């Protein structure tokens, strides 16, 4: 049974902090050239989605089964926020190249680890 699991040590961080976690996998019968672990954000909401892969780690020729710890330095921006039109969500994603195995783990990157809520104010 193939699987790809991702575990973050903390899922609420402040911008600029180090995010750490572990990825575990079992490729089953398939053989992947690389295992990619990516730090990225994307937007959700009314606007067409924007996204950016901020950092990536590649594990070459991963063994059939295994686990690997990783760490990323979070940038100072953008922050996790949720408004009337836009939400910005940070995630770590792991994928075994040339297989269907992909998983992700969302987390918060904002002061005090609290997502910023933007409440609409009334037009004057």
């Amino acid at each position, binding site marked *: 049974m193939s699987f790809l699991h991702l575990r973050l040590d903390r899922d609420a961080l402040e911008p600029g902090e180090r995010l750490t976690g572990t990825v575990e996998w079992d490729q089953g019968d398939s053989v992947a050239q690389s295992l990619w672990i990516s730090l990225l954000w994307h937007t959700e909401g009314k606007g067409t989605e924007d996204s950016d*892969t901020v950092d990536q780690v590649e594990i070459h020729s991963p063994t059939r089964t295994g686990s690997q710890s990783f760490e990323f330095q979070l940038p100072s921006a953008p922050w996790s926020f949720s408004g009337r039109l836009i939400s910005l969500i940070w995630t770590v994603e792991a994928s075994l190249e040339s297989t269907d195995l992909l998983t992700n783990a969302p987390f918060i990157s904002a002061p005090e680890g609290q997502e910023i809520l*933007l409440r609409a104010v009334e037009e004057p």
Partner: protein
Amino acid sequence: MTKNETESTAGSRFSGCIGWIFCGVFALIGSIVFVFLAVIPVWQIIRAQSWEAVDCTILTSEVESHSGSDSDTYSIAITYAFELGGQEFTGDRYNFSNGSSSGYNGKAAVVDRYPPGSQTLCFVDPNTPSSSVINRSPGWFLLWGLFPIPFMLIGFGGFYALIRWGGELGKPKRRAKKSFSRRQDPVTQDLDPQQAALLAKLDGRPEIPEIRPGPLVLESESSRVINFVVIGIFSVFWNGFVGFFAVDTLRGDGTSWFMLLFLSPFVLAGIAMIGATIHQGLAIFNPKIHLTLSDGDLRLGETYSVSWKLDGRSNRLQQLTLSLEGREQATYRRGTDTRTEHSVFHRHILVDEQRLHFTEGSFSLPIPRDSVPSFKAQRNEIQWRILVAGDIPFWPDVSESFQLWVSPPKAFDEERS
């Protein structure tokens, strides 16, 4: 790449191709018709100004009728003879109009002026005497040249949109499983800030403007003169196009009430555009406000000083309000339309003056701590702006905005463990 993503990418490429073909057809047909109805007649009129004037005799003249699907159209059919260099020639061109239109009376009046056997002047190309014309002046028929412009705007505007936002149209939608795009940092590291910003834009990555500490003169988001010129040009084209059809309909034989009814909303829109052009023209003479920030490196949770100065007739201002606004901006597509929505999440009045006694001053700009920094991606943005609103009795009001770039507090710039 998974099968679904391959299909999605192929589908996007297909829809992208359809877009290019669609715009190409509009641009090509619009351009050909524009050349035929505007460029060639104008070029011929200019050329004919140097042609030789010779006496000619009208041989035949009549209003020619052309059957159309809705109604008949008419053109001036005229032939004439003239002598040049001892040789006899004939011509059959009244003016440089290419085609026929619905107005009969105007053409009948021309035909009445040139009965067979009458003498008149015609203009002949001395190098090619087979090229001749009776009336070499520009006429209403040139307005037909406006007809293909909307088609060209759709075509070339579509090309612009495809080039500017084509990447986004071709991108597969995010789903649970997707492949990653590789980061190109080693390349961008060697670029200057402008090149890096351009590359980031092309790559769909968020843009961060170059931030310079120290005083910063803010620039208004829009130019009054450019607004006036854009609205004015659009108004001239719109009203020229609609006015031509309206006049042609009114001058036609038996006014078509259906056509008049059909044209009336376009005429009303044209009148509104003239009003908007006048309004924008008057706004050019409004007093202009200049804002200078004490520090261009704005941070959440900090307070800055802004100096302001008014140019022009500031004594006409009855009220001046400056406010700080934070808003979300989301751009999305619905069908073939691209729409942009805003939602304001922060508003704070900075200055609210009745009856100004000074033409310059300064105020505090407190950036809230419990909010978000500026963010600018291709379709989603967090914007911070200073809004200026001024009330002038019986005159267009002052309305300007100055965009700010607000960064996270400095504490978040450093690496933290």
